[in-house]
């Protein structure tokens, strides 16, 4: 059981301060959302956690990449591939028989609500369906920690709420889930913990029920 802990992290890119003395921890097997306006440093936190960016100051628990499944903010569509093939690629490093892989892929696709899309070409899907495929791809890797960077920017409200419900369900199944998002209302409703950022600093760090009180006070 591993979890992320960061203390006094400062990050600069081209002499511009992105994160300013930030400390937080991500609890295991919970659904945590990082929120905040554009440019507040949300995505940079994820990139530090996976080791893509290095802070100039402070410490972050380093978690080996083989425990993390990560979906970045912008992804270009993989050409040619079918949905089922993408989920299968997620299982690439797992040592399971072909038959079991098929069963696992079916289970995951059901969980994410894309069981009817397995034989479709990825490129032919809608934005919301694509995000569900990427989530399935993450789950197929069977890693403890899932990091998602603004997966919902191009999706209508109804699908977003469904997606949040799915995420909540998944985190209940012993996954640590970290979501960077713009969707304040939905994240507060479905996640366990909220980290709210502004100008490279953490303004709020606590449970989502506490965030509601904090928000109304403000």
């Amino acid at each position: 059981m591993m979890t992320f802990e960061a203390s006094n992290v400062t990050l600069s890119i081209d002499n511009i301060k992105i994160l300013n003395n930030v400390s937080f921890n991500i609890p295991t097997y919970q659904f945590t959302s990082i929120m905040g306006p554009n440019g507040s440093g949300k995505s940079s936190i994820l990139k530090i956690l996976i080791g893509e960016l290095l802070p100039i100051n402070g410490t972050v628990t380093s978690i080996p990449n083989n425990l993390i499944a990560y979906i970045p903010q912008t992804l270009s569509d993989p050409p040619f591939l079918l949905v089922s093939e993408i989920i299968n690629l997620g299982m690439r490093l797992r040592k399971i028989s072909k038959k079991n892989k098929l069963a696992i892929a079916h289970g995951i696709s059901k969980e994410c609500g894309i069981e009817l899309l397995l034989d479709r070409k990825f490129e032919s899907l809608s934005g919301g369906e694509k995000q569900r495929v990427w989530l399935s791809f993450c789950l197929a890797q069977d890693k403890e920690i899932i990091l998602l960077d603004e997966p919902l920017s191009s999706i209508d409200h109804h699908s977003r709420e469904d997606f949040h419900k799915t995420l909540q369900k998944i985190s209940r199944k012993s996954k640590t889930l970290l979501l960077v998002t713009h969707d304040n209302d939905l994240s507060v409703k479905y996640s366990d913990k909220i980290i709210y950022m502004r100008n490279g600093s953490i303004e709020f760090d606590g449970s989502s029920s506490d965030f509601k009180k904090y928000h109304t006070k403000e």
Partner: protein
Amino acid sequence: MQVVNNLLNHSFKFFVLGTLLAAITLFASIFLGNLDAPLSELFKGLINRDDGLISTIMWQIRMPRLFSAVISGASLGLAGFLIQTSTKSPLGDPNLFGFGGGSVFLISFAVAGIIPTSNLSLFLLSCFGASIIGIIFAFTTSKENLTPIKLALVGIALGALSLSLSVGVISYGNIFPSQVLTLITGSFSSSTWNAVQISGLAFITCLFLSCTVSSTLNVLLLGDRLSKTLSANPQKIRFIVMILVGILTGSSVHLGGLIGFVGLVSPHIARKIVGNDSIKLVLMSSLIGGYFVLTSDQVARLLFAPTELPVGLITTFIGAPMMMYIGVKLR
């Protein structure tokens, strides 16, 4: 299109159809042509290898030509599959993307008499020229934000550049127009067993190596970032793959000059038949490529006989509309 899809989905029907078509093409490539002799004589010449005219034409002209066309096409088909998969670009084609131009550039030095040549050194020059383009390509495509369209533009620009440089060298060397035509528009009219042996060996080696990297190739379709999370090293694989494409393309240019669109079309047809399984695609793209070029060569040879058309003209005639179709459908 639906009819074609249904037909292709039935692998048995496809097998029967494929064998039948291949048999027709093979028959045409061996027995049809300018030789005015009855079929039985031609058959005798093929079976009893001797010094007679018919036997010589069979074994020193038609057979090496047949093998050249198949190996050249198979190399291009495989190269096209490797480019399309490793760069995520459905529009990938080794000659369209300048690999073939790199070969022609170096070969034109030899043809222009600026550097001396033997069959082997021509082959090596050709592969080296294409591989240089491959290395340039491997570095360019390692940028995350390259869409298939941008990539195709980079490739086509590289292709135009290498071709214009070759034409520069050729005009400097005062070469006969027919030689230039052979190099730039493709022809198998001067095939030799020696070239077939060298290129055949190169193809088999590349086929084997492609099979060994094939399991990682589909991972690259997810993009560099995600493929890294699956413990693949996209830059390294793309580098290896581009060198393979360089050798395959160089070898095909050495055999028959620039033959366009085979690398673009073959993998798309192969995908329709075998799906996205990469090892099956490696084999099927080669098979389709070989068949495509062999058939095109028969059309080039026989359509206006005794005048021969360049084989690249026939493949372009089929391939260019298909590229337009793929381009329009591209998201």
